[in-house]
């Protein structure tokens, strides 16, 4: 079940990505309306990160294309922010928390100019939003996994984009950080931004997202949470382990029709 929409903010058509001639993403075709919090779920190796990287132009694609705001990525780079997996960088690099967040301001102007006062102010505000201002001068290796993730998100906030692509922002983070990150995402959505999140926990997925993409090399489903969060789609995405999936389907149904307590 793939729900196509009119006037999508992000659309992907026939997108195929292969490593060593082995497809990791096959014929992905979907469209997403503005202002959604989109969860991308699927088993390990389903191509979730690959999908984000392909849309962000970070890896070569075998066929197909994607459009953002009805333009090619190159024309709208400044409207898109990307949060990579936190394992993708060297956390021993000599740089401070504030330094990293200021990198979010690099794109909008020439790299060869100094950041102006407004840029620095935006970086400080972004740090404030993720509740990390007290850590501004700390070296990035002194942070916990959750704090590192929040710094990455602050950097994305500093980009002041319209669309956010986040690769596993909840992986390896403590409860407090997860809560803080969710609050930030909700605030972004309230401001009319569209957010894509690669996620691996189905149970929290139904709390966080209002649009879901189920992925297993192919797009199994893409649509509003209530339409795609079905046992059948879960099975098609994950295969095997039926009982666990039925249980999750059950939990979801109960959430839909909460049992009123008197």
């Amino acid at each position, binding site marked *: 079940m793939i729900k196509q929409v009119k006037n999508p903010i992000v659309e992907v058509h026939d997108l195929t990505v292969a490593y060593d001639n082995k497809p990791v993403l096959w014929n992905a075709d979907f469209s997403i309306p503005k202002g959604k919090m989109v969860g991308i779920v699927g088993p390990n190796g389903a191509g979730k990160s690959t999908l984000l990287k392909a849309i962000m132009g970070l890896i070569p694609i075998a066929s197909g294309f994607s459009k953002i705001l009805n333009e090619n990525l190159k024309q709208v780079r400044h409207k898109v922010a990307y949060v990579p997996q936190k394992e993708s*960088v060297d956390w021993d690099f000599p*740089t401070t928390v504030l330094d990293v967040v200021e990198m979010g301001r690099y794109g909008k102007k020439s790299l*060869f100019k100094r950041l102006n006062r407004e840029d620095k102010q935006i970086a400080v505000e972004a740090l404030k939003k993720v509740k990390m201002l007290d850590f501004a001068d700390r070296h990035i290796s002194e942070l916990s996994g959750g704090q590192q993730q929040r710094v990455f998100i602050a950097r994305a906030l500093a980009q002041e984009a319209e669309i956010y692509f986040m690769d596993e922002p909840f992986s390896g983070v403590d409860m407090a950080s997860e809560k803080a990150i969710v609050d930030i995402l909700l605030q972004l959505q309230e401001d009319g931004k569209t957010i894509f999140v690669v996620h691996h926990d189905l149970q929290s997925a139904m709390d966080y997202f209002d649009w879901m993409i189920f992925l297993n090399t192919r797009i199994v489903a893409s649509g509003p949470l209530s339409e795609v969060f079905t046992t059948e789609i879960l099975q098609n995405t994950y295969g095997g382990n039926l009982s666990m999936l039925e249980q999750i389907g059950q939990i979801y149904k109960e959430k839909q029709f909460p049992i009123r307590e008197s």
Partner: protein
Amino acid sequence: MFDFWIILTACIIAINSSLLGSFLVLKKLSLIGDALSHAVLPGIVIAFLISGEINSFWMLLGASGFGIFAILLIDWLNRVGGFGKDSSIGIIYTLLFAVGIILITSKAKNADIDVDCVLFGDINTTPLVDKTVGVPTPTFNLIIITIINLIIVSFGLKGFKITSFDKGFAQTLGISIPFWSYLLLGLTSISTVYSFDSVGAIMVIGLLVIPASFANLITRKLKSFLVISILFGIISCISGHLLAVLFDIPTVPTIGVFMGLILITTLIGKTLLPNKLEVKA
């Protein structure tokens, strides 16, 4: 004036190598200096065979050309062949160095190209060579290159920083990764070649790697990292030369031993006294 030219030359090389070496160390590419210093040998020999002169402009051109050629080959092996960076470097530099040795022994027997001189250099003859505007020519060339490097790095600091720290993110901002990476390696290639003459291949590698590694031990901010790296290089060259004169031993190896010992002493000190040896600002 004799000692002055030697110390000045060594210091200029130290500034240059420490500056570029800092980024190589941060990108975990420090062995690229090793690779370059050996891979340029065929370029030097071929230029000699064509021009028939030693220490000519052509030799530097040949060497720089082969340096950049080696970088392209390493990059190609790494991207297309799927070899690790370290293996790609090892494959290319042994290949090119071996070609260079064969060329020397078969075609350029009469030439006065001494493999030892390529490896160890001869800084103590600096004051005796031809001069350009009153400065020994090798030193003069190095000063020009160093000024160019300092200007490029100070204007491009953000580019080097973001492409070293987070390539993927830099790419999403539309920043060209190949541009910054070839810029750094190209500058390193040219600087390495010009430094050979004076301090030899081994010490060029030492000056690329050791000052930056020292800075890595004691600071966690990029700007102080670069400053400390450069200062460490300069102080080592001055101290090394003075010690060499004092004990009547060769200058270049003394600088090397001095740097190595200071680095190890600092590491031991840091292990014994954690949190004391850190430059905060």
